[in-house]
């Protein structure tokens, strides 16, 4: 049969796109390579009785607009928001706890520096002011600066006006912070090293960058636009992140979307009147549009026949920066690890190992030379503290996001060095939680190579491509192709490789749907 749209990949963005298309009365089918839906937002059992969010462990957060548009709560989506945002472990056994509640956080910071405690609220408010101006930009289709149309000009105008609304001081802050190294930004606000590092971490998460790299403040601005706070929340989902994508899938199916798993697309054929895709079992699907939730490199360098694309475009795609730096380690634990000098109540949010700016920078240095960090930066969650469904009673799972683990190792390869890396991470973590090793029942190591082979992330990049000044907004993935359309008339992108990029927000998917609906409605069948 002829579908209106075929969606390649049942990641959260693909599912969001499918839902919005269906709401607009367009019939679509979602084709997922793996046996489960969810892409990077999945819950999987990695040891009998133990399961967790195998990749991403916290939501971006998912856009509230999408949650209500798709009634995801009725589909069983349930968020868990511990009052602790992040507990940051210091090397001297001192730790810093950032709560959702500002007053509590200020009291915590007071222990380190009253100057910082005084600055913290203003730091939050100025970011939320700027964030509120950037927020609408996230859900807008980036205007084309290549061939601006009247509506593009109008979009620019809107951005301009919002910018004006900030007032001179914040206008200049925004202009300065955009290209700034996050290490400089936090140094302007705070004197406590641990606090600096805790805030700066967002700027380098998932990137091939250290806190001293220019443009890393962008991450904080993006986070503020999403969440009005530059420090990411510990926003977990009941049943793990898979709970979120399951709810999306249910919503999609209730709207009449077909979802096929174990359906790996191997080729996109754009030659005929309608677009066709072919699966590895030679099965074919035909539709008026093909929407790829896969990353840009996979889409254009693997699925599309090179002869269908201009050499020039292909060259630019090959130069699209996407060098993965993240590995994931999931542990099944016999009991709750004890962190030196930390009461249990503070472990329910994210836990950060990355006590100093220099620590984070050194972790990055290794990646520059194709080595993994000897002392990696870790972002940890123990979801079982707030969600008993993931492990047997009394047992726990620990989900560890590890940086830096460069996709290309200079010596050896990930098949042979995965375990060595895992040991490095666990030894480092054991410095803060001495009893950890004795508690480990089983472990799962997901190297950048696994991210590519199992999860289909080209070069193992969790954000579908570096999120930096040269690859964001109207430059994502490429200047001139930031409007979810591609050089191929019937092919669209809806994944993290498009504005506003990675993180479980669903916004790229929603934005893409808006453009696709425009085109399909205006185009006769």
């Amino acid at each position, binding site marked *: 049969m002829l579908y209106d749209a075929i969606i390649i990949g049942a990641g959260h963005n693909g599912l969001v796109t499918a839902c919005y298309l269906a709401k607009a009365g367009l019939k679509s089918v979602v084709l997922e390579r793996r046996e489960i839906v969810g892409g990077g937002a999945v819950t999987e059992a990695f040891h009998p009785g133990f399961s967790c969010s195998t990749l991403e462990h916290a939501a971006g957060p998912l856009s509230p607009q999408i949650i209500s548009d798709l009634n995801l709560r009725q589909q069983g989506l349930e968020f868990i928001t511990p009052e602790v945002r992040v507990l940051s472990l210091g090397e001297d056994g001192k730790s810093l706890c950032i709560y959702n509640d500002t007053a509590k956080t200020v009291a915590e910071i007071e222990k380190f520096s009253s100057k910082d405690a005084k600055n913290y609220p203003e730091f939050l408010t100025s970011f939320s002011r700027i964030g509120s101006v950037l927020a609408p930009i996230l859900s807008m289709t980036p205007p084309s*600066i*290549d061939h601006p149309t009247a509506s593009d000009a109008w979009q620019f105008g809107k951005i301009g006006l919002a910018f*004006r609304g900030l007032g001179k001081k914040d206008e200049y802050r925004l202009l300065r912070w*955009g290209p700034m190294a996050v290490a400089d930004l936090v140094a302007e606000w705070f004197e406590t090293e641990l606090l600096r590092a805790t805030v700066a971490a967002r700027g380098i998460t998932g990137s091939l960058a250290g806190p*001293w*790299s*220019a443009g890393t403040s962008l991450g904080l601005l993006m986070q503020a636009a999403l969440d009005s706070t530059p420090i990411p929340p510990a926003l977990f989902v009941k049943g793990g992140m898979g709970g979120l994508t399951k709810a999306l899938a249910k919503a999609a199916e209730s709207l009449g979307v077909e979802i096929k798993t174990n359906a790996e697309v191997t080729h996109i054929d754009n030659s005929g009147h309608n677009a066709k895709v072919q699966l590895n079992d030679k099965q074919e699907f035909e539709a008026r549009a093909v929407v790829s939730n896969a990353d840009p490199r996979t889409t254009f360098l693997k699925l599309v026949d090179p002869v269908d694309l201009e050499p020039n475009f292909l060259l630019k795609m090959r130069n699209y*920066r996407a060098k993965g730096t993240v590995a994931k380690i999931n542990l099944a634990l016999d009991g709750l690890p004890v962190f030196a000098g930390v009461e249990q109540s503070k472990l329910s949010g994210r836990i950060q190992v990355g006590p100093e700016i220099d620590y984070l920078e050194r972790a990055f240095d290794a990646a520059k*030379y194709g080595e993994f960090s000897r002392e990696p930066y870790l972002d940890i969650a123990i979801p079982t503290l707030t969600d008993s469904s993931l492990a047997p009673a009394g047992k726990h799972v620990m989900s560890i996001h590890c940086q830096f683990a460069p996709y290309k190792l200079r010596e050896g390869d990930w098949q042979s060095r995965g375990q060595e890396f895992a040991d490095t991470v666990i030894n480092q973590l054991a410095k803060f939680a001495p009893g950890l090793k004795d508690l480990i029942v089983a472990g799962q190591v997901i190297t950048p190579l696994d991210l590519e082979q199992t999860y289909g992330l080209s070069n193992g990049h969790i954000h579908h491509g570096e999120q930096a000044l040269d690859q964001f907004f109207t430059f994502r993935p490429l200047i001139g192709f930031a409007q979810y359309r591609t050089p191929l008339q019937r092919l669209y992108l809806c994944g993290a490789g498009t504005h506003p990029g990675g993180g479980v927000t669903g916004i790229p998917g929603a934005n893409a749907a808006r453009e696709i609906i425009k085109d399909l409605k205006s185009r006769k069948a």
Partner: protein
Amino acid sequence: MSNKYDVVVIGGGHNGLVNAAYLARAGKKVLVLERRHVLGGAAVTEEVFKGFKFSVCSYVVSLLRPEIIRELDLPRHGLEILPLDGTFTPMPNDDYLWRLNDHGKTRREIARHSRLDAEAYDEYGKAMIEMAHFVKPIMSMTPPDPTTLSPKGWKNLAFLGRRFQKLPYEDKYNQVQLMTMSAVDFLDQWFETDVLKATMSASGIIGTFLGVRSPGTAYVLLHHYMGEIDGAFRSWGFARGGTGAISNSIADAAREAGVEIRTEAPIEKILLKNGRAYGVVLKNGDEIQADVISSSVDPRLTFSKMIGEEHLPSEFCEDLHRYKYRGSSGKVNLALAGLPNFKAIPGEGAHLRGAISISPGVDYMERAYDDAKYGNFSRRPYMDMVIPSLTDPSVAPPGKHVMSCFVQYAPYKLKEGTWDEKREEFGDTVVDTIAEYAPNIKDLIIDRQVVTPLDLEREFGLSEGNIFQGELSLEQLFFLRPVPGWAQYRTPIKNLYMCGSATHPGGGIMGAPGRNAALEMLKEI
């Protein structure tokens, strides 16, 4: 002579002198006050050792604006630029890369390393020249205020927008990348030869506290293609008689236009009467009155030392403190009994007449930066060396030579010890590094002058030893230089202007800040 002037210019550096010359040519009565016994600021020639004349700090001409050379008729005032042909990069394996101004030769030389790169080099050159043409007029324009509400301000912003809009797609793409990427990421897209990328990317880090992999370093690659002598793109040169000869020719032009110049006239304070500057007091107590003061020294000296922050708006002071200097380079000047003998190309030859670059690989450059990030000078630094005495015998005794070595990284703030303690150790590191490529260097050294960042601050009044009067990083460029809202050469103090490298378009022997400032001042006085 009366003690009342139209304008007093603080600092007899090249920008101060250019500024004075333009004001005098417009009929103003101008006095230039220089703290040292010689004119030129960082563009000086000094006979440090008997018979050896060093261009102590800045050592090559490239960006001196052609309009200034023309308008001030500098050749008639003794400016003579001698060509500096090519860049010779020796490698540890005794191979080398030698780029010359002769495109054909360079192409053949690169082909020796990689045929692909040789072909790419043509394309690259063309693209960069297009970019340079785009950027050129921006250097001689007063930065618009992006927060302005005035129609004229809008006009200037629109001018930039339209200019960009008019670019062909490829140029837009390149321009965006140049402004946002790291030099290495940018060059990776064009070339595969490591040493080629390393030696080209070096221009991106000079005078900044950034590495070749830090975003924001790519755009400086343009400067190489903007270097203009007699309007011809991308040629570099020496001034006969050393860099000081440039300052002297400008001073000569200024005097002819009626400018009065005093050396050894250090300034104590800028005189204020209810928020307006009306003159200066010298260290010796002399008071000099003027309608307008124009300061070519950096903001820290101008505002914190000569004005006093108590007289300035607190927000302006906060921004002043945020303005980053953190010098990262030093200089070693050698008096040589003969010529260094490089293992890569033994004997004397044309390769010694150009720039000699110690930048054998991207990792080498990056490791040099890593040392600096953690507060040490590079154990194996990047160096840009020239032997001007080969082209201009007047700077050394017959048969003898001077060798000027620009050295990065030498961070102003050392983790351990002071620069006075480390001076010789630093000098030895530099000589040892050269010796790895030219072993005979140690036997040739008659005398050596080591200029540390601390010396640059004490001797030449460059705060924290930054050769550009403040880092040329993205957040300190154009309308953000030196301080947001004060990028138009004016200051919060009435009748006080800035005309030094701390203003747009920044450092290097360009003279553009001095000229731009003069044109702004003449609108108002």
